[in-house]
């Protein structure tokens, strides 16, 4: 276990800047996720931490050692790759034990450690197989075994589940989480899947254009996103954003969208310019009160149904508990649960706190 600290880290490839001025502290035993769309620099950042890419600027600290000039191996970390990167000509046992073989450990010791690791990952029956004889999930477990056997200070995961089917992905997610709870090793996980990030992480770093836009707990990035970008990236279906104006009538504040207006909680201080309003599906209410809307799409997903409606302000997706009896073109009324409203500055797109 170790802490990982990045101080003003940048990585450039010629003219292209992949990561710029990244500051990040991962505490001992913490599981963090670098989350962002493809091309946002998250894998590059992971490679820089691993030592597979040289850092252009800044410092990388593992525990109390600056590791900028250390080889990947000397940084004492292990990495699990997106396409598993198993050595195709080696058996499962040889794959897992390769790092020990390189260090010229005695054969008996290697065999013992490989067996231990294989037991914890339920690979003991597959030790003599070649990677091509394994299923995707088994291959991924071997890749994890190869990382675990090193007993590294830090685990790095580079989109390890993106080649797996949905069901297996959820299962592997559970396995990784259990593994982390058991070993308590500091972990950095890269993914573009916000659900994966929310379910696995102690904290999430949401990235865009090579920068960290927000670093916080899953609750923070979901409920208190710092910007429109983070708010849109986290949460599925995406939150809806409406452009309207504040107005007050008889001391009561309203947010007007088109010709419709929504009553707001008591506000004492308002920004000079009205901000945009963001509402997540669970805070959009469909019922007999509110502004008229017409059902456009109904998506049942089991415990919830997502109902997309069209109204004067555009379209909005609401989360309805259980099975909804609404059908396309049904007439409903739409209102907002004011406890969960998010406001974003129209110019900077940053979230503003209204009181």
């Amino acid at each position, binding site marked *: 276990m170790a802490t990982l600290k990045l101080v003003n880290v940048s990585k450039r490839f010629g003219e292209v800047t992949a990561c710029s001025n990244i500051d990040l502290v991962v505490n001992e035993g913490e599981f963090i996720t670098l989350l962002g769309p493809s091309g946002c620099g998250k894998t590059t950042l992971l490679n820089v931490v691993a030592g597979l890419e040289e850092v252009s600027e800044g410092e990388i600290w593992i525990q109390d050692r600056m590791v900028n000039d250390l*080889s990947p191996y000397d940084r004492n970390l*292990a990495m699990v*790759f997106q396409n598993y*990167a198993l050595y*195709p000509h080696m058996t499962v046992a040889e794959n897992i034990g390769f790092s020990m073989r*390189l260090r010229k450990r005695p054969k008996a010791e290697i065999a013992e450690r490989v067996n231990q690791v294989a037991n914890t990952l339920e690979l003991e029956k597959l030790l003599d197989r070649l990677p091509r004889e394994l299923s995707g999930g088994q291959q991924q477990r071997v890749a994890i075994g190869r990382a675990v056997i090193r007993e590294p200070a830090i685990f790095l995961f580079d989109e390890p589940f993106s080649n797996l089917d949905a069901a297996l992905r959820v299962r592997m997610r559970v396995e990784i989480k259990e593994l982390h709870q058991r070993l308590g090793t500091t972990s950095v996980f890269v993914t573009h899947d916000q659900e994966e990030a929310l379910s696995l992480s102690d904290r999430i770093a949401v990235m865009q254009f090579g920068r960290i836009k927000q670093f916080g707990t899953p609750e923070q990035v979901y409920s208190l996103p710092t910007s429109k970008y983070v708010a849109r990236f986290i949460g599925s279906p995406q939150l809806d954003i409406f452009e309207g104006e504040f107005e007050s009538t008889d001391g009561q504040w309203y947010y007007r969208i088109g010709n419709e207006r929504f009553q707001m909680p008591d506000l004492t201080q308002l920004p000079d310019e009205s901000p945009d309003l963001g509402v997540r599906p669970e805070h959009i209410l469909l019922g007999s009160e509110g502004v008229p809307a017409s059902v456009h799409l109904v998506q049942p997903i089991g415990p919830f149904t997502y109902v997309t409606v069209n109204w004067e302000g555009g379209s909005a997706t609401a989360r309805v508990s259980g099975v909804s009896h609404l059908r396309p073109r049904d007439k409903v009324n739409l209102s907002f649960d004011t406890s969960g409203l998010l406001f974003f500055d129209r110019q900077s797109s940053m979230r503003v706190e209204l009181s």
Partner: protein
Amino acid sequence: MNKNLSKVIIQIFLISFVFLALGPILWAVVTSFLPLSSLTAKPIDLDPTKFTLTNYVEVLDTSRGLMSGLINSMIIATFTSAVALTVGSAAAYALARLSLPGSNAILLSILATQMFPGIVIAIPLFIVMSRLGMIDTHLGLMFVYLSFVLPIVIWILKGFFESIPIQLEKAAAIDGATNTQTFRYIILPISLPPLFATGVFAFIESWNEFFFAIILTRINVKTAPIAISEFAGQYRTLYGQMLASAVLASLPVVILAIIFRRFILEGFVEGAVKS
């Protein structure tokens, strides 16, 4: 119906292609068993009762130069392909994977050496070799063969190395392997099929080479193709013996291809498909 017709047409085409390719070989094998009198008769006498092994017995006589030619060819082709593979695989790996300054220029200049027909460099090469005292030596011919085999080996293997997922090397680096260890334990073992394929290619190239062999050898290092050509004299050509020698000289290559055929096929397929 249409499908079957096109199948038949393709098969006819393939069969005729096989005949076209095998024809000369078949002809060489048949005539190698015929006495000179049958071969010079008009029309040619293909009477199977006259089949004889005399040609083979004659050419295997050590005084005829074929045996020493085969030995010379074997030495030169073996060493050429061994050196080409060792040096070529290391160079190809470096060019494919390490960020070398000017690697593109290096690659292009390697390719550029292949753009000149042999005849253009024949005279300068002869002068250089004779100044170095390398005329009629194994080493001399080996160097010359390497100069045209090595570039091709480098280009073929570079393409293959590039098709290996880079994550394998990253994983090895994380596991603590140096560049050399990565090459030895990971890259080399999974590259065996293409290495065999290019090795066989390098061997065949050097084994069959005629032009430089005739310029750069005199007596000691005559290779098999030169020995075969010497059955054509000024006054008469010993067709039977010539073709018997040709058949014998083809055997090592054929055997090599049969032994490594699985690797050769895999090798060329793997180089073609990126995974």
